[in-house]
């Protein structure tokens, strides 16, 4: 075990890191109550006058719905393609196996602006209409690898003997998948899917190039930052989103930690 001094030191460090992580979040939430529409320190005064206009803002609502739709669809695609790819890579040894891992990591490893530019030109060339599906495709590129990594990591830790035992007991491939394999990777899917959803929901660089004239929530936020007239509305929206997402994130964490076999990252 680590010495007592080390443990105290680590505890202090953890507290400092948490403070570092959360000071800007506290600032955001505090300035949702800013009296002035221009941000400056110290705060000009406290008021709740921004809450109602922000939540009833039609542009914001449309942007929020578009973001949610795009994130849900991108996550779904990522779950399907990512887990298929991870099974394929994990179970079979073949020439070009590493190339697939490399290929899937590219969207995260390459700057988002390159993905954005490339997809934009590509869609324009094939005369695709910019809208929900172009946004989803853009997001799916990097969501797939998030799910893929989580599932592959889990598959490495699940003993292959389980599958064989299931087959020995008379289950066919599909039954084995449903009763044995799927439950053992389900928590990896949940945590991968949740991270993919978060990344897609907050993505702005690729989306700027693939959304056309449509606004997702981050694009709406950037427009408000440009304008500088209703900034506290942005703070209100972020504050509400944080308040709402604490529950699913905490829930997902509880679910994935009680999996029984081994946890995910």
């Amino acid at each position, binding site marked *: 075990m680590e010495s007592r001094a080390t443990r105290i030191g680590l505890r202090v460090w953890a507290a400092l890191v948490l403070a570092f992580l959360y000071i800007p979040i506290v600032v955001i939430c505090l300035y949702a109550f800013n009296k002035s529409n221009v941000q400056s320190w110290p705060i000009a005064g406290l008021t709740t006058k921004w809450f109602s206009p922000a939540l009833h803002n039609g542009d914001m609502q449309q942007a929020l719905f578009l973001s949610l739709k795009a994130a*849900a669809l991108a996550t779904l695609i990522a779950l399907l393609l990512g887990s298929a790819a991870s099974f394929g890579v994990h179970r079979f040894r073949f020439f070009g196996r590493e190339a697939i891992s490399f290929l899937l990591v590219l969207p995260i490893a390459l700057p988002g602006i390159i993905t954005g530019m490339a997809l*934009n030109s590509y869609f324009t060339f094939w005369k695709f209409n910019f809208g929900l599906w172009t946004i989803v495709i853009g997001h799916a590129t990097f969501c797939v690898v998030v799910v893929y990594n989580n599932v592959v990591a889990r598959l490495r830790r699940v003993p292959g003997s389980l599958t064989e035992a299931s087959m020995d007991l008379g289950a066919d491939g599909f039954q084995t998948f449903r009763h044995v394999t799927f439950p053992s990777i*389900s928590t990896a899917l*949940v945590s991968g899917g949740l991270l993919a959803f978060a990344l897609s929901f907050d993505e702005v660089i690729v989306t700027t190039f693939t959304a056309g004239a449509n606004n997702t929530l981050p694009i709406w936020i950037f427009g408000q*930052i440009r304008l500088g007239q209703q900034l506290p509305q942005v703070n209100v929206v972020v504050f509400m989103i944080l308040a709402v997402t604490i529950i699913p994130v905490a829930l997902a964490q509880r679910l994935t930690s009680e999996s029984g076999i081994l946890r995910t990252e």
Partner: protein
Amino acid sequence: MTKSSWALALVVAVGLAFPAAGVSAQRGGTLNMIAWEGYTQPQWVKPFEKNTGCTVHAKYAGSSDEMVTLMRSGGGNQYDMVSASGDASLRLIYGKDVQAIDPNKIPDYKNFGPAFKAPPNNTIGGKHYGLSLQWGPNTLLYNTKLVKPAPTSWAAIYSPKYKGKVTVPDNPIQIADAALYLMKTQPSLGIKDPYELNSSQFTATINLLKKQKPLIKKYWALASDEIDLFKNGDAVIGASWPYQTNTLIAAKAPVKDLVPKEGATGWLDTWMVSAHTKNLDCAYKWLSWISTPKVQAEQAVYFGETPVNSKACPFMNKLAKGSCATYHANAPLKYFKQIHFWKTPIANCGNGKNDCMDYTKWQQAWTQLKG
């Protein structure tokens, strides 16, 4: 099923349900507009939407370059209208991105000042490619408490007195501002038009900007950048639009702006309609609405610019006493001629030779200047 499978199924079900939800019904059409910050405020957009049933979505752009690119993006069919300044309008016309309109369909067109009915930046060969909107100068903005004595010349942003607290726009067209300063202070260079610079004039201008660079705290790209810089003490003097001045004064910041003695560059904006729009009806309704005297006055007072409708003056004075005179809305010609409106620099400067720097060189020089 296990707990985790239920959770997964719930996520998937929610995900599939969303595409069905959230599609709002639109009565009229939707106008996707590219606009300068402050050009589509709810004060005049909400009544428009209520009266006509058309919905307005604004995408803000901070420079004419951005507007041209946005207008051309996705094959040119993403946006319906754009509030283009003079240095974007010709590019859009020649790029066939905008369509000709019939100004006689706009009731208030007859009330426009004569200089704005068919200006060269939106009327080619008698065809009108848009409707003039508003115009104004790029101003010198300064902090009244920290900049003493009050500046009267653009020299204030080129002198080391306020080193590290100066800000200018992040826009290649800013080179023209420096050229304008040289035009008045170094006549030996022979600059006649800040947008027509031959090689030696261009080099001299870039050198001035290079000397200015150590003084700059930040090249502002977003209007809110400059507002934050002034409000939070990071800049005390800089080149600006009246929009920032008005917002800062409303937020109780001690600032003032002016047009210095050398004159200023400025903009003359046109609402243009995309060649590929599917909402021509709503577009014409917007053009009619935005040129009525009351709305012209609202926008002029809000942003700090001058309306093209000669009947807007009394409305302006009702909104803000004396604003008609402040923005020279009723004595336009002398003041108007002092402003060097934005236009796209091209190689052919009209002196028979083709040796002026074209805009690509301006853009490259600007990127390399920032470094």
